[in-house]
């Protein structure tokens, strides 16, 4: 188990370097000049542009910029925004907000998704199965921003059940609607995957053995079926964390949540390379760490992995 964890940790290093490099290249090689963009339509003073370029290191070759950036990174310096603030400071304000939102959403995803999927899987081919299938298809088909506006329009504007904007991100009641909207898409995928693995594993030989052993149904489903069926579902939830971050950009915009998504969206619109790279680097780190945790959890659940 220890060796397995160490191996996974080592495998993460090249992926981390590769992914951050990719982000860095995407921001710096693609057309679009952030310094020039600061002036908008007005004519810029070439001397000032050059000075700013130098200040942000943009006059260096890209590879040197990347190495400098990574070296700074290991000293905890994620660079400065064009506004002059440290990226890490901006992040430390916004990150806990998004973290709360995402965790809340993942909790909804797990409870509702696995619950619905298990129900459909146990009743495969019957009415609840078809009902859940159509419901999840619909949820997957409605883009997050449409769903967000619909939810806000109906629940907040028309019915007045919830506040349309999140003023206080530590208030779970206010966070509920954005978290719910954020969770919906992944929840639908989790429900479908759970349904499939449940229905599949129901037909497995070891389920027949469990039945032949005279175990009560509660135990057959709760121990033998659940354990096996949750393995792929947990893996999926792990790989899906990235989608949550993408979804957070939308949801935070609609419900005015002051989180990472908002910061990132503004940075992209103003082509603030350092902020984008800084935020995305931290996100990639978080995603990789979550994947590691999921991998370890996977090994705990499946002995065939643990002893491989």
């Amino acid at each position, binding site marked *: 188990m220890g060796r397995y964890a160490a191996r996974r940790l080592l495998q993460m290093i090249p992926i981390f370097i590769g992914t951050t490099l990719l982000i860095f290249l995407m921001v710096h090689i693609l057309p679009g000049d952030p310094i020039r963009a600061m002036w908008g339509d007005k004519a810029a003073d070439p001397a000032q542009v050059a000075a700013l370029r130098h200040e942000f290191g943009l006059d260096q070759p890209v590879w040197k910029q990347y190495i400098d950036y990574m070296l700074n990174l290991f000293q905890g310096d994620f660079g400065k925004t064009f506004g002059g603030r440290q990226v890490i400071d901006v992040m430390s304000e916004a990150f806990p907000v998004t973290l709360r939102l995402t965790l809340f959403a993942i909790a909804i995803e797990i409870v509702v998704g696995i619950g619905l999927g298990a129900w459909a899987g146990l009743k495969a081919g019957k009415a609840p199965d078809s009902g859940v299938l159509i419901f999840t298809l619909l949820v997957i088909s409605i883009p997050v921003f449409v769903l967000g506006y619909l939810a806000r329009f109906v629940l907040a504007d028309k019915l007045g059940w919830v506040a349309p904007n999140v003023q206080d991100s530590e208030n779970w009641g206010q966070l509920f609607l954005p978290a719910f909207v954020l969770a919906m898409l992944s929840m639908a995928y989790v429900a479908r995957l759970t349904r499939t693995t449940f229905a599949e594993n129901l*037909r*497995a*030989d*070891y389920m*027949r*053995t*469990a*039945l*032949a*052993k*005279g*175990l*009560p149904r509660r*135990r057959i489903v709760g*121990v*033998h079926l659940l*354990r*096996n069926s949750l*393995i792929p579902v947990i893996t999926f939830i792990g790989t899906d964390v990235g989608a949550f971050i993408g979804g957070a950009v939308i949801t935070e915009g609609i419900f005015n949540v002051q989180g990472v998504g908002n910061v990132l969206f503004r940075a992209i619109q103003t082509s603030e390379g350092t902020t984008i790279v800084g935020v995305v680097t931290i996100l990639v780190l978080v995603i990789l760490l979550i994947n590691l945790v999921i991998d370890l959890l996977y090994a705990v*659940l*499946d*002995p*065939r992995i643990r*002893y491989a």
Partner: protein
Amino acid sequence: MTTIDKTMSVPGPRGGSESGAPLLEVRDLHVEFHTRDGVAKAVNGVNYTVDAGETLAVLGESGSGKSVTAQAIMGILDMPPGKIPRGEIRFRGEDMLTMSHEERRRIRGQKIAMIFQDALSALNPVLSVGYQLGEMFRVHQGMSKKQAKARSIELMERVRIPAARERVNDYPHQFSGGMRQRIMIAMALALEPDLIIADEPTTALDVTVQAQVMDLLAELQQEFNMGLILITHDLGVVADVADKIAVMYAGRIVETAPVHELYKRPAHPYTRGLLDSIPRLDQKGQELYAIKGLPPNLTRIPTGCAFNPRCPKAEDICRTDVPVLHRVTEQGGGEIAGRGSACHFWKETIHG
């Protein structure tokens, strides 16, 4: 002409309950599967009995209904698509098909246990073998986790798994095929059931390991005086351990006989074909016999005798009339205990 509706048997010491009924009696059992391609009639009127300490071998190709019958006895058929439109399965005289789910569950594992063919897929891959063995004691006897583990180790020792104490927390994939099948046997034996159904218990194993596992099973059966239904397609396995044989074809029993009688002189062309297709050293160099044709499609079983399209002896009557299970006698009309054949021409087959 007389017909047999159950094979004769001497009641064993433990089989005789108050009613004097046999340990297990299957009567006119029918099982069908409703699928997209039509209704597959997997079992079409099977009768057999098993007594305590007795071994019944059920022989047949895949699709002959031998496993489906066993699953119906265990009560683990997938229903739907499976359906039991007719028949009785009496355990100690009581029809299990009319029992409640809870009553049947209590019988499963405790009174009747099953050993499956492929132990690797039949054991839960993510639970340790100790947990899976201990579950029997915890669920049926309410033991604590600790007690159950101690009993699991005992069981593993009993089926001669080396270093049982160290291996009790291992997972199925860490054992060899033979050891896994021993674990399956241990699980079936855990609560000392009255009847064990072994569905091709050695098919997935190496030949050398096969003999060990069969010997172990036979030995434990004797020790506990259990009834054993041994389902197989391997004539070699049967000869050593079985008391009597039922040969199945297209969901029916086509021949029943005490084990050595059957090998000596089969009374059904299908059994004869099976025996003739075993390679023999004294016929080296000759072409090996094979039954021509394929097993029938269970959604469209031929009229008359189901075997008629493949039978070398088939005549017009075989294509129209379903043969009943005739009582097989000596040429002079003398009784042969426990023999029956569902062939219109059984006399010609056995004596001809």
